[in-house]
């Protein structure tokens, strides 16, 4: 029995083929994962299946209905959660639930749903004021109302921390009946590996359709296989890092000393390539947080946060949504004024001399924050000017960046029309245009596909080797492994600081026998994701 039968489906948008003569069956009662690079056609396919888009040619049959002519009948049987969740941010949790219950002609019976989402205490909170993870749960709850026969989730776990991601998965698995079909598009390959079926899309075509376990037995291998299917990833030396020239305005303490906050044990700091010169401004930490605190009323968003990041180090801030990572970030670059404490960038106090401190900083924001109406080149020109690059050097620098980042083909395109992976590269290009010694990256890879993420991290680690200090937040636990040190954030406080292995050992001690999973690493250490969850749970108790 198939829930969906697609035959020879084609959909184009202004000469761009999104779905290319695609045929696919989706089995009833199974969870099917939809995987693919950005622009592979995942969202378009989902929208075609429920009749939100009309195809150029081809047929689709969903639950025995034609979505293009019988959409009104079809929608009463399905639950669809779009990428932006479809929540009304100015309505409260309970008002959103009631609205969707009315729209789906369902009774107001939310007890089980509220309990499941643990949203019960937040019923009267505006949906817009919820953390990312809670929004997702609420979106899913609204979608699940009326027990749909067919559930379609478009990247429900983008930008969500590992704990919320597990909750989300649990919620779906427990709330559906065995007959329910689920189509789940995702960028997380470990997630896709746990599904019944995996469908890999590439350029609007299905390139793999089968059991994930047939492809590989562990999520890691599965990721490698999928990358291979998608054309493979060649680990080339990063041109971006090669092009980077370290600005030698500041000199450093010649011997990289372990900072006060640095954990004992192994020191994973990368050896500094340029031997520091002795000089006047000798500083130990390129980035330093000094007892940063932010209070909103009686609520501590960030509490007594201190750390010291050495030159060329990648320092990761990890934590659930709403733990205070973004607030810390904003305080570090002087966008939010701390209640007490301060931060120093290259030894310059961000409170006393914000402009000078910031000039050493390249910042990549969580959301795409470039000018969508401007072309790639214009954005670069603007940021070059904004970072104070002189008129004469500007053109040269922009040309250079366009070449290094491979923007030649898209330089005259409006940046809002670019695929997500390009947008993210452009954001990085703008952040690097003035060769800053420090990079701040706030969830830089959120929503980006696995190959683009690998490329991105190749650039980041190479930049770090050239002496760039990097502060990064992420929800991808595999990315956390790239960090030299991690600060695990929870409820506004750093609950653990150390190298990834140190944190894993800490977790292994707390939780000697983590549930056996094939994802466990050779040494018997838990995965980063298990570590994250164990440490957070521990701090709860």
């Amino acid at each position: 029995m198939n829930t969906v039968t697609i035959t020879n489906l084609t959909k184009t948008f202004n000469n761009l083929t999104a779905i290319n003569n695609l045929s696919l069956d989706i089995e009833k009662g199974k969870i099917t994962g939809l995987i693919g690079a950005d622009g592979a056609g995942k969202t378009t396919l989902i929208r075609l299946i429920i009749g939100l888009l009309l195809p150029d040619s081809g047929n689709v049959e969903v639950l025995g209905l034609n979505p293009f002519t019988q959409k009104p009948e079809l929608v009463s049987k399905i639950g669809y959660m779009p990428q932006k969740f479809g929540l009304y941010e100015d309505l409260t949790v309970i008002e959103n639930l009631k609205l969707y219950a009315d729209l789906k002609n369902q009774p107001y019976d939310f007890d089980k749903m509220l309990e499941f989402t643990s949203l019960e205490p937040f019923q009267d909170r505006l949906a817009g004021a919820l953390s990312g993870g809670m929004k997702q749960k609420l979106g899913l709850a609204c979608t699940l109302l009326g027990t749909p026969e067919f559930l379609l989730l478009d990247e429900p776990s983008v930008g969500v921390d590992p704990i919320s991601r597990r909750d989300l998965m649990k919620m779906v698995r427990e709330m559906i009946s065995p007959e329910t079909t689920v189509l789940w598009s995702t960028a997380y390959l470990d997630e896709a590996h746990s599904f019944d079926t995996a469908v890999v899309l590439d350029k609007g075509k299905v390139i793999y359709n089968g059991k994930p376990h047939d492809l590989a037995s562990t999520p890691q291998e599965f990721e490698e296989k999928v990358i291979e299917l998608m054309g493979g990833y060649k680990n080339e030396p990063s041109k971006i890092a090669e092009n980077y020239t370290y600005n030698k305005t500041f000199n450093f303490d010649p011997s990289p000393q372990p900072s006060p906050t640095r954990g004992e044990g192994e020191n994973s700091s990368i050896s500094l390539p340029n031997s520091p010169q002795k000089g006047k401004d000798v500083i130990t930490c390129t980035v330093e947080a000094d007892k940063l605190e932010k209070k909103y009323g009686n609520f501590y968003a960030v509490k007594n946060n201190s750390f010291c990041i050495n030159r060329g180090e990648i320092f990761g801030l990890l934590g659930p949504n709403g733990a205070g990572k973004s607030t810390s970030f904003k305080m570090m670059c002087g966008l939010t004024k701390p209640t007490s404490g301060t931060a120093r960038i290259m030894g310059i106090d961000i409170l006393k001399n914000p402009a000078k401190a910031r000039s050493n900083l390249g910042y990549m924001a969580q959301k795409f924050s470039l000018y969508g109406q401007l072309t790639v080149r214009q954005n670069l020109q603007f940021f070059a000017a904004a970072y104070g690059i002189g008129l004469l050097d500007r053109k040269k620098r922009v040309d250079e960046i366009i070449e290094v980042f491979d923007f030649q083909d898209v330089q005259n395109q409006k940046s809002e029309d670019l695929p997500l992976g390009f947008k993210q590269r452009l954001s990085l290009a703008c952040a690097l245009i003035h060769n800053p010694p420090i990079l701040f990256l706030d969830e830089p890879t959120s929503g980006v596909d696995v190959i683009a993420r690998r490329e991105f991290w190749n650039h980041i680690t190479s930049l770090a080797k050239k002496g760039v200090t990097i502060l990064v937040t992420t929800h991808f636990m595999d990315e956390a492994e790239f960090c030299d040190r991690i600060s695990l954030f929870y409820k506004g406080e750093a609950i653990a600081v150390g190298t990834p292995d140190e944190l894993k050992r800490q977790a292994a001690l707390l939780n000697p026998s983590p549930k056996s999973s094939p994802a466990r690493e050779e040494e018997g250490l838990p995965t980063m994701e298990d570590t994250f969850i164990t440490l957070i749970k521990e701090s709860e108790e």
Partner: protein
Amino acid sequence: MKILMALIKKEFLQIIRDPSSIIIAFVLPLLSILIYMYGVNLDSVKVTLGIKNDDPNSEISTLVKSFGHSKYVNSIVFNNEKELTEAITRSKIKGAVIIPNDFSTKLSRGQSGDLLIITDGSEVNTANYVQSYSTSIANGWLNTSKFRRLANPVVVNPELRIWYNQDLNSHYFILPGSISVTMTLIGILLTALVVAREWERGTMEALLSTQVRKIDIVLGKYIPYFTLGMISMMFNVFLCVGVFKVPFRGNFLVLFSVSALFLFTLLGVGLTISSKLKNQFLASQVSLGIGFLPALLLSGLMFPINSMPKFFQILTMILPPRYFITFIESEFMAGGVNSIRLINAFFLTILGLFLFALVYKSTDMRLKN
């Protein structure tokens, strides 16, 4: 029905939570009425004139005095031509009257005396005032002076009766007219953003994947903003009649019924813009251009439609404010004139229904890309 009710309830909750709707509905009328009340004045104002008398005859000095006594004119006496010229150049005076030295001599001989009236052509309206005021003051003086035998005998004696607005107080028609401009802005601005907002925030995509019908979406937008718009209309009328004491001679029931039709057309304009553009920024720009400017310039409030070029006269026929301004000015000042009520209500209904159909047609039930 249940779905429609849910959508209406949702929209009301959003209105209450979103301060901008409340600002548009209540602060905007207040500001606008204050501006039209104290900022705009179309009443004739006193003009300042310079007078230079070169005629030494004592009888002529009474002419100079009668300029000083006029309630339409402030006069300044100059003895030096250079100073007079400079005062005009600096716009200290809006015109000048120069009495030549042979003025009384000519009049005594029974000839016609020449009077030089200088006006400032860079302000055409004021120049006209200067000309007509000076002429009528001079003629008035002639009838009372010793040269009165020279004046033409008065054959026709006009008795002036000003209908509808006895005191010629321009606020009595500007304020009701301003309601029309304000309501245009409110009606369009309130709705121009609301559909675009749903597209931008992705809630429309979620709505479209439920059993919501097209008519639910359309009415779910019309009904809440109609209600809010009518409350705002009442507030406008209250400000005009209750606070600024503009006389109202018509029937409130008729006033609000026709206002309802007017609002119905405006919501149609706003919702069409919003459904077509699907972008809040663009929608707000376009609605100002389509809503505010024509309502101000082409509706007949500021410039009479009869004196517009033919093309614009025809263009005004599709502008809802044109019909409403005619109606509301008549309803306030003249009271119930059934022919005006009916014809304007008729055109508003036609426009409103047409726009409703357009909104319905523009409402997409699927995504475009």
